[in-house]
């Protein structure tokens, strides 16, 4: 009886001392190379968020801010323009696996590449800044691909949500004036910012604390 109790206590102590087991969705992410890619992706998403703010300041007139309260007022125009929306990214779980998550992120990034390209074409902007943002999105996509490669999650490429030509055809008639062009650009950047924040949260959740630091 005593022996049983002692064993039980020892197990309890061990369970307290030993680190908590890593849950299922993160088991695959302990790979240093994967973590490296996550860190790189996290850095790039931060850069994208910085670039969005900077580009918005240069491209969009001051009346349209990135504040969410203001953007809620543009619901009607958003519906009117019917800009394609990026897929939602849910927190990682058993139902929303890493593969699905990365796929959704890739799809969303490609969508925003197309959207930004078309909108910048229709609403002339500071091309260098837009190019820079597009390159950052591309680099982030490369990191996602790398993660998919590392985990053999890229069986087939995601379907293209919308092609440039299709989007340009759809959008061009709607952007009849400068205001609407600016609103389209504003909504594009706003949507990209929201998406990037979701991606940032996801990457943060993918990060396994490392002992390599201090």
């Amino acid at each position, binding site marked *: 009886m005593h022996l049983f109790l002692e064993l039980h206590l020892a197990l309890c102590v061990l369970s307290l001392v030993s680190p908590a087991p890593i849950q299922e969705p993160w088991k695959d992410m302990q790979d240093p190379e994967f973590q490296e890619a996550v860190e790189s992706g996290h*850095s790039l998403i931060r850069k994208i968020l910085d670039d969005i703010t900077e580009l918005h300041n240069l491209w969009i007139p001051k009346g349209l801010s990135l504040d969410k309260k203001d953007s809620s007022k543009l619901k009607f125009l958003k519906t009117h323009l019917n800009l394609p929306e990026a897929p939602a990214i849910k927190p990682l779980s058993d139902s929303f696996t890493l593969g699905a998550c990365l796929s959704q992120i890739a799809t969303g990034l490609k969508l925003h590449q197309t959207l930004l390209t078309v909108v910048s074409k229709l609403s002339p902007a500071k091309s260098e800044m837009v*190019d820079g943002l597009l390159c950052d999105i591309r*680099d982030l996509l490369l990191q996602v*691909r790398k993660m998919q490669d590392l985990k053999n999650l890229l069986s087939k490429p995601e379907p293209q949500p919308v092609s440039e030509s299709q989007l340009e055809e759809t959008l061009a008639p709607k952007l009849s004036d400068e205001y609407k062009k600016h609103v389209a650009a504003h909504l594009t950047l706003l949507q990209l910012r929201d998406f990037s924040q979701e991606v940032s949260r996801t990457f943060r959740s993918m990060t396994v604390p490392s002992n390599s630091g201090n």
Partner: protein
Amino acid sequence: MALCWISIHSVVVVWSIMCSFTANVRSSPCAEVHAPSTVVLAGSPVTVSCYIKEDCSLTKGQDFHVEWPYQANLNYSDVANQNKSIYEIIIHKFTDRTAVLHCAICKHEDCSVVAGVEIKAANPPPALQNLTCLLNLTVPYSLLCTWNPGEETSSIPTTYTLHTEIRNQAFKYVPPPGKHFYRVPRNGFALFYEVQVHVEAVNALGRSTSEHWVMDPMETVKLDTPEIQKVGTEKYGCLRHKWSLSERQRWIVKYMCIEIRLTPMHGKVSDRQQVSLRNHSKPGTIDVCDLLHGMMYQSEMRVRYRSSPWSEWSHPTVATTLIKAPTGRLVTWLKLLGQSANRRHRAELFWKPSLQFRANSMNVSYIVSLVRPPSQRKTVCNTFQQHCSFQIPVDVRKIHLTAVNTAGKSSPTEVAVYKHTEQDPVAYLRVYPESEESVLTEWSSPVSSAVSTYVLEWKALHEEIPQISFEIVDKNQSSLVVAGLEPYQPYNISIYPKYKDGIGQPYTVMAYTRQKAPSKSPEPQFGEIRSSYVELYWDEIPLQNRNGIITSYRVFYWDDENRVRVTDLEGTEKRVVLKDLRPSSMYSIILMTSTTGGSINGTTVTVKTPSIDAFEIVLVVIPACVGLTLLFLGVFTCFSNNKCLKKCLWPMIPDPANSSIKKWTITSSLQDIPSFKEVKDPVLVYLSHFSLLSLSEKELWKGNPSTSEYLHSCKWSYDGKSVNDDHSDSSRDSGIYNSGSQTESVPYATVVFANSYRSQPAAPPAYLRSESTQPLLGEEEPSSPRPYEKMLTQAEPSEADHFSTFQEDLGSKQERVSLWEDFPMLKSLEVKGSSHQA
């Protein structure tokens, strides 16, 4: 625009290459020269053919042959061709960078060039080397790639193309001709992703490619200087640094290599070691531990991404670790100065931290307490310095030294008080320079071998308040390197043997780690300046400017005609007299000061020696003239008047022939006698000699008639106080004589001084009868003086001066002759006097 330019350039290059490789035909009305290419591989064989057209006017109906003139340097040979109108040659090894081949139609020896072709020899591009790329994170981001083209073949154009490839997506960039770098735009590379980069060079003869380099552009970036936002303390011995990248690079949240450098700001107290930490960290916070307690540190950091170049060091930030009470012991050196007075010693205590001592704070004060048994303490010093002077009562045996900071006190360091300070010093102490900052000291143990330890002490003499440093040395050790000294500065190094019951006398040496020439030479000052010499003196060089021990001075001086002279002096001398100078000359003087490390010349000073002045003439000439004159006069006088010489050289010998007895005072005739020091007062002098040579006859007879009368009546008196009656009788009788009478041979008398000669005791004067028969000298001289008829007396001078020659009648002559017979000497005197009158 760039793309357009690149495409045009590419087209031109390709066209030129195409053209160069197509068959090269150069034709004229008579002929066509055909070469396979205008650019050929250097060293390869080239075949060139000349096709003579049928309608060529130069060949119609005429015999001709084809030649390839001006190709003497080309090794070629003809190639037989079945077609008679084609003349072909082969150049076996074409090495010229450029060659022009001419085809000429010749009739006999008359040749005409009808066509030609220019061919170039070249090589394919060499292998490209050293392809490097550097990412620039300044907007717009770019990747600057450079390469080394190798040895260029400038005779033909070469095109370079930079290739980048990101996950099967390729980009090509062509730099302008002659440039060997390219700034790849943002789309041509990715961040945090492998990019394959290579360069390709193409010319008419081939292509070469650099190695394919796979790299992450982020690994080539030199990041901006990081920022230390805050340094805080939460744990003992640790500093927490909150840091970030620069604002424009804050998006990078990856692990990075960081280096933190911590420098103690107060190196005086304890460890002076710099702490350096290298770690991987994301921007945020990092702790640096194992630091000294209570120490102010200056923190700096730099950062890099993997193998990228380090950023610059950040701006320093200062923070202090948490304070603790001091720990560990102090090393002490107690010196008792002089003898005790009023049962007290004057003492100096020096201390320094031991290796184990930790101040644990920036500001530490020290308390020195005198300990009297059993546990009575008296604080004599409370100081922030590391030395203290105080007085110790003779009964105190121990001193306690305690370090104190705001967090607490250290355990006291006990210092034993040694009373005896007069014990033996070491036998010697030698100091050898070892480096610019250190010297090697060597000493020998004292005669008594009971030394427990040695104390080596040194102090810088150039400092206004010399700080004493010391080292406690084991008794078995006999040498020590003293480091941390300054070159060219003087130090006093002393060694004290420490005995069981006291401390020995110090042995002190002044030393330099290195010596060099003094910083300046002293300015000579002029002292006395004369026509033939100049005195120079100077002050000692200040200690700070000596740079070594002054070994010697050397004075260079030269005159208007550049005749240089040198005077050497010891280093201890400060004065020199430059002698043998010429008057009225300008002299330039330089003082050279030397140490063993070198010499330095001072400034040139000039001085003009004065001409010889009147004073000097007076000093020299007048004494010389006076001397000469006196000498001359003396010699002249002596030789002209041998009497004087006689007087000077031998004692006066009375001449009885020219003598008559007379008495006078010395004052009336001092000049006629030799000067005797003893004879200063007018006293009576009794002489046997008396002369009237200097008196003329007139003078003799000059005077009042009474005198004459008196003389005629023979009434002349004689002071008979010191002369007896006989003598007075003789005198009286001597006045009665005939001047005309002369005798052939007369006896003479020896005249004896009535008074002593010089200091002899006086004897009564007496005339003695002479036994000699020698004739008297006086009769030979015609100018013998007249006889004195009356002597001057002191008592009655009016009666004394009566001189006369007696013109006696011849009637009384016979009586007088009979009278003189009894006094032959006096008789002879009278005879002589008569002859003089005659």
